[in-house]
């Protein structure tokens, strides 16, 4: 049985942020993740926004963590070498009712500590983004866009570099408490794990895991959101996130957001669902996104469709009223050795490190944590050929011929980058794992050219058998075997 000081259940952005923060101390830390990679669920199925924090109730954890996470992100992005653009955001309005709502949120933003928000007129809007609709708008300069996959991967890699262990394909199925207070976690096919502290960061499954750990009664309502991803050609027209005025439920309807790589996301919509992990996209959903997308963004055209995807927000609700609740980050005296995170939805991405620090604080209140002198907060990512100038590209190719071979034509991703991704510190070997680390297959041909090469490289580099190559989720086998001649190819 493997023994750790701390086990985190869930390898999403919050679980990985917690792992990373915990490796600042002399503790053995492990993350148990049921899928074959980090960031496969809610963490990777969102708009990629660094929120400013004006939406949330003053004094709430959502407000505090969001503003804190927003303020520090330039430094975080530098430390972890992750793509980030502090683009600012426009929230546009057309009517007097909109104007009142926008003024309300400026005030709320001010209360929450969001800096620089102002109500601007059409003339100022034209300076910032002439393609944005509306008669007036909130300009919120602190909002930004990031790549949630690379951010989560970076947190995880930095955690691993500093001594944390990730156990992938490891689903927690049961829990026992030993007499001396040790927690034992049973898993599906991966044996037992023991630890002093269990941190529940299981996202959509956090209510179930909470009950498993001895804290029943939390209720999650998954709310599904569907998205379109549009071609970078459409992205050329979307400089800055432009949102419609928030609804009276303090949410945003469908909007068009540029991504940090230059695509555009149109969405999400909001539908209450029973199964948060059914990520199918519906015809009705797409029709609705098309319609409202066209209203918000002139270049919402079929010819720019790259793909669709869906996610689900794990909203914690009051069991009696159904009202949506704040983040829950709790420890309970009657359930020692557990830190319980339930309902970490938006702004979870922005709040990941602030949440992690609050978890550390809860641990510090109960035991002495010794700081590690050799903790290194810096993580270097895979050098991206496509980001470089022609001179830099020439230099890269001269140093490493692997940069001279383009594997993904649409996104200009080289063999050197694919190799680096294949040999990633977490041991991920799926096609999607390579995709999110390099952007290969994210372009307009969706792997039409590169997928055959990427699967061949996975097989060659890692010795994965043909019928074991997986697209992404556990069990997503791509091939049935050889055509001729039995096993070998």
């Amino acid at each position, binding site marked *: 049985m493997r023994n750790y000081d701390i086990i985190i259940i869930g390898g999403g952005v919050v679980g990985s942020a917690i792992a990373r923060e915990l490796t600042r101390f002399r503790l053995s830390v492990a993350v148990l993740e049921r899928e074959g990679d980090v960031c496969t669920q809610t963490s990777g199925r969102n708009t990629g926004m660094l929120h400013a924090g004006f939406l949330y109730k003053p004094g709430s954890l959502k407000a505090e963590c969001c503003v804190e996470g927003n303020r520090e992100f330039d430094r975080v992005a530098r430390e972890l070498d992750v793509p980030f653009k502090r683009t600012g955001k426009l929230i546009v309005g057309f009517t007097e009712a909109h104007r009142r709502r926008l003024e309300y949120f400026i005030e709320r933003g001010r209360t929450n500590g969001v800096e620089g928000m102002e109500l601007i007129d059409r003339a100022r809007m034209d300076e910032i983004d002439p393609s944005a609709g509306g008669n007036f708008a909130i300009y919120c300069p602190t909002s930004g866009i990031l790549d949630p996959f690379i951010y989560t991967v970076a947190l995880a890699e930095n955690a691993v570099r500093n001594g944390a262990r990730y156990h992938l394909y490891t689903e927690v199925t049961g829990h026992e408490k030993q007499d001396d207070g040790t927690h034992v976690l049973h898993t599906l096919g991966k044996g037992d794990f023991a630890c002093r502290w269990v941190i529940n960061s299981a996202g959509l499954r956090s209510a179930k895991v909470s009950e498993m750990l001895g804290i029943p009664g939390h209720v999650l309502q998954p709310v599904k959101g569907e998205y379109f991803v549009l071609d970078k050609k459409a992205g050329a027209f979307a400089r800055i996130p432009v949102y419609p005025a928030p609804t009276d439920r303090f949410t945003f309807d469908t909007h068009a957001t540029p991504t940090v790589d230059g695509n555009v996301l149109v969405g999400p919509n909001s539908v209450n669902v029973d199964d948060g992990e059914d990520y199918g996209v519906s015809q009705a959903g797409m029709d609705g996104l098309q319609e409202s997308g066209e209203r918000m963004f002139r270049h919402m055209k079929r010819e720019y469709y790259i793909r669709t995807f869906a996610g689900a927000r794990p909203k914690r609700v009051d069991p009696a009223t159904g009202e949506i609740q704040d983040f829950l980050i709790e420890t309970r005296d009657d359930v020692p050795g557990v830190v319980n995170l339930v309902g970490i939805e938006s702004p979870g991405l922005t709040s990941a490190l602030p949440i992690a620090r609050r978890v550390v604080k809860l641990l510090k209140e109960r035991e002495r944590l010794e700081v590690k002198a050799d903790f290194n907060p810096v993580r270097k990512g895979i050098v991206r050929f496509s980001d470089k100038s022609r001179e830099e590209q020439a230099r890269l190719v001269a140093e490493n011929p692997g940069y001279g071979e383009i594997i993904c034509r649409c996104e200009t991703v080289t063999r050197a980058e694919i190799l680096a991704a294949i040999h990633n510190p977490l041991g991920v070997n799926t096609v999607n794992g390579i995709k999110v680390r390099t952007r290969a297959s994210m372009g307009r041909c969706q792997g039409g050219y590169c997928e055959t090469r990427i699967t061949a490289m996975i097989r060659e580099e890692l010795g994965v058998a043909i019928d074991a190559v997986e697209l992404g989720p556990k069990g997503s086998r791509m091939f049935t075997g050889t*055509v*001729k*001649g039995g096993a*070998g*190819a």
Partner: protein
Amino acid sequence: MKRVFTCVVCPNGCEIEADYEGADVRAVTGNLCPKGRDYVVQELVDPRRTIATSVRVTGGDQPLASVRLTGAIPKARIFDAMRAINARTLAAPAAIGDVVIHDLMGLGCDVIVTRNVPKV
């Protein structure tokens, strides 16, 4: 009985209507040349096909050589032909025109390599 065939002999792809009873072809219309008539008669009496597939190659710079038949065989024998071809493995180098199986199943045509596979 009447049936319309699309002739595959040349790119014209004539739509040919045949009036027939069993193997007795009464009339053929719509063909631009006599080959079309021959094709239709053959189709009715003894349809034939050529097939293309692949064969495993060992020691080559790629795992497969593509192959095809040099002539048409009875349609009904296609899967027998596949079984015979699947039983073969070539050792590189393989060159276009190499005979993989001579006189396949005694049907009068060969299986030949159609893609060069040099030794690795």
